[in-house]
């Protein structure tokens, strides 16, 4: 009898352990994926009681206003859709969140939708980690009023994969106080590379730990930053020719950009001594007053709200052009919502409705106003999106601006001269294997920054050959 007990106990243990070992990895209540990436109806989500459960991203405890706004949104949404059960997830797609997305999906624990960035469009759509929302978007009554250039970022092979939250065209920030303290004049908005270098030199003080200029030197952000200069120099990195994608950056234009980077580091020494940085480290330097010019689209918030700069001291500038009159190309970026493809069609539909619930509505303006009042209370400024999800010439934009006008000195007012120039030459990211290209360029940048005598032509040649052989040659158009 005792022996039987022992055996039963051991057998039970191993069964439990094996059960743990044999998990498919695609657990949870998600829909079962088909081989072609489509999704079957999920009995858990849209089950017998016709209830639909969606999991929404819920702000962390320190963001009280956002939490209140979300609670309010959930209550209003459930009033209109009482069949929807809403669960909360505190997971966000951020620098760390990107690392856990695969695991969340594997465990069936990813929320019904998640935030992401423009730079992630390629990898998320390639991997099938973003649901095709074309039909949902086509049925949306305000589709035509959504900013098309933002929608286009997640428009792949005729299908849409994301709803924009807001976007920007790459820009730089200038610490005007530093310029004033050094008796230096601010450059004009339609500045050139040459003027950018002169401006950087005028506030540069390496012995005090103050750098005139900072561009990302680490992670793929470095390659991403550099690509703006590539475009300005006239090289668009890749081209499609005779049904083949070719890397073009081993060019005279590419060489000019690398020479610019080399000179910033070695000739003018205007970069931070510890140049191997990206955000948030660069932002930290900027708000400490240790950077004259920062290559960062969120510089206003960093300077005014995080760094305590007076609004007139945190200047935002369009990217420069290579020479007077040439286009100041700048890459478009932004924040997006992507719907989890593991969810059933009903859940996906409800997630779409939840995301867009306040879009183009009075409630959206009210939520924005609450955020402004919170900023006001904290003696901060509200920085409106440079490229909101709606078209700037839409009726909704007018109403939003009327609300903004009620808060002078709280809502940041962009200089009309800046607005005229900054987005006139907006450009998308390189269309093929952008992240891989950025990684290659980051290594090239780091070689230039760490080796005064780096052979620029050879670096470009090797980089382009690697890009071609390892990635572009494998693309079938």
């Amino acid at each position: 009898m005792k022996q039987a007990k022992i055996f039963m106990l051991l057998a039970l243990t191993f069964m439990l352990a094996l059960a743990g070992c044999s998990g498919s990895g695609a657990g949870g209540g998600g829909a079962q994926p088909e081989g072609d990436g489509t999704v079957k109806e999920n009995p858990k989500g849209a089950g017998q009681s016709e209830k639909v459960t969606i999991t929404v991203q819920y702000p962390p405890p320190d963001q009280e206003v956002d939490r209140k706004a979300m609670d309010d949104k959930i209550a209003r949404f459930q009033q209109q859709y009482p069949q929807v059960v809403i669960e909360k997830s505190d997971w966000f797609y951020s620098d760390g969140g990107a690392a856990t997305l695969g695991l969340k999906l594997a465990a069936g624990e990813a929320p019904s939708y998640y935030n992401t960035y423009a730079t992630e469009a390629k990898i998320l759509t390639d991997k099938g980690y973003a649901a095709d929302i074309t039909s949902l978007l086509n049925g949306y009554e305000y589709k035509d009023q959504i900013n098309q250039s933002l929608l286009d970022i997640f428009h792949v092979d005729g299908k849409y994969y994301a709803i924009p939250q807001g976007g920007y065209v790459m820009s730089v920030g200038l610490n005007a106080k530093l310029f004033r303290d050094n008796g230096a004049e601010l450059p004009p908005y339609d500045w050139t590379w040459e003027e950018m270098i002169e401006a950087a030199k005028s506030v540069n003080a390496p012995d005090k730990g103050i750098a005139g200029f900072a561009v990302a030197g680490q992670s793929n952000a470095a390659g991403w930053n550099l690509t703006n200069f590539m475009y300005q120099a006239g090289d668009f990195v890749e081209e499609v020719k005779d049904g083949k994608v070719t890397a073009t950056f081993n060019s005279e234009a590419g060489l000019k950009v690398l020479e610019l980077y080399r000179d910033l580091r070695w000739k003018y020494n205007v970069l931070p001594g510890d140049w191997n940085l990206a955000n948030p480290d660069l932002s930290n330097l900027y708000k400490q007053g240790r950077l004259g010019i920062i290559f960062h689209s969120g510089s206003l918030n960093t300077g005014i709200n995080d760094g305590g700069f007076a609004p007139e001291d945190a200047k935002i500038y369009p990217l420069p052009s290579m020479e007077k009159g040439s286009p100041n190309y700048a890459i478009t970026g932004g924040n997006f919502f992507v719907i989890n493809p593991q969810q059933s069609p009903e859940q996906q539909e409800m997630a779409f409705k939840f995301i867009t619930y306040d879009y183009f509505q009075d409630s959206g303006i009210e939520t924005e106003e609450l955020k402004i009042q919170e900023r006001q209370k904290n003696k901060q400024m509200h920085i409106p999106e440079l490229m909101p999800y709606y078209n700037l010439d839409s009726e909704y934009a007018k109403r939003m601006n009327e609300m903004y006008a009620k808060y002078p000195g709280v809502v940041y007012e962009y200089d009309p001269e800046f607005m005229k120039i900054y987005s006139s030459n907006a450009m998308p990211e390189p269309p093929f294997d952008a992240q891989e290209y950025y990684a290659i360029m980051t290594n090239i940048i780091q070689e230039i920054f760490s080796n005064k005598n780096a052979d620029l032509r050879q670096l470009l040649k090797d980089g382009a050959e690697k890009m071609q052989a390892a990635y572009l040659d494998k693309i079938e158009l």
Partner: protein
Amino acid sequence: MKTQLAAQKPTSGTRFLKHSRLYFWGLLFLIPEIVIFCVFLWKPIIMGIYYSLHDINFIRGNTFVGLQNYRDIIQDEAFFTAIGNTLWFVFLGLVMGYWVPAVAATAISELRKFKATARLVVYLPNIVPAVALYGMWRWLYEPIGPLNDFLTIFQLPPVEWLTDKSVAMFSIVLMNTWHYFGSTALIYLAAVMNIPKDLYEAAEMDGAGIWQRIKYITLPSIRHIFLLMLIMQLIANSQAYEPQLAMTGGGPNEATTTYMLMVVDGAFKQFAFGKASAMGVLLFVSLTLLSILLYALQRKGGDES
């Protein structure tokens, strides 16, 4: 005849039952460990091998690709750079850090006073949380930071601690040594404390000085700890990626990209779980072989002694 023999000789099944009865409680207490090891150790290892033979996609499902992931890795130049960097990191760890805890432990053991204080002091760096550690050392390594200030006292030029390709790995090893030597020193110290006191007393009576005591008593008595620490350091440093990720992001130009950093980047930035798993399997095999080799050497050394 055959039946008689069988009756006399217990079968392996009955032997197992007999042992099971004897060890019932022992086995019972082992159950949680069996479950934990199976779920958290052996499952990931088996899944890693499975993933390494597949193209992993959590939405569309996995596709069997045979050895393609392994072929892709071998064709990637960065793979060999990462191996080279990891070996360099391991080597520097041995040269710059391996001996430090043993020296500290021996020195503390020879102290007549303040032994407990010295133990605490060497252990203190170990309790600094990783985030604070990296923040602190990045500040120390700043171009106009304290270390370069210190160098200027001796009229030495400033060092680009983290942005010079030939220096960055040294800087990381220096930081790591400072952080970890205390905990290892305590292990050595425990071993030293276990050496019978009468050996030292006898040696002192025979006129042995401090160096002779260390050479002829302390070091031979703790040589098994040296080997154990060597194996542990080799394994830990072969898998290191956190300091590189935090201090340099693997740069400049891949100069500090270690093998594990490449694995982590592959899995969690590029979502190439198959390729990353294949690299994990190769590391697993290499470290297993290394451990077997070192233990064999230890056994051989033990037999000879």
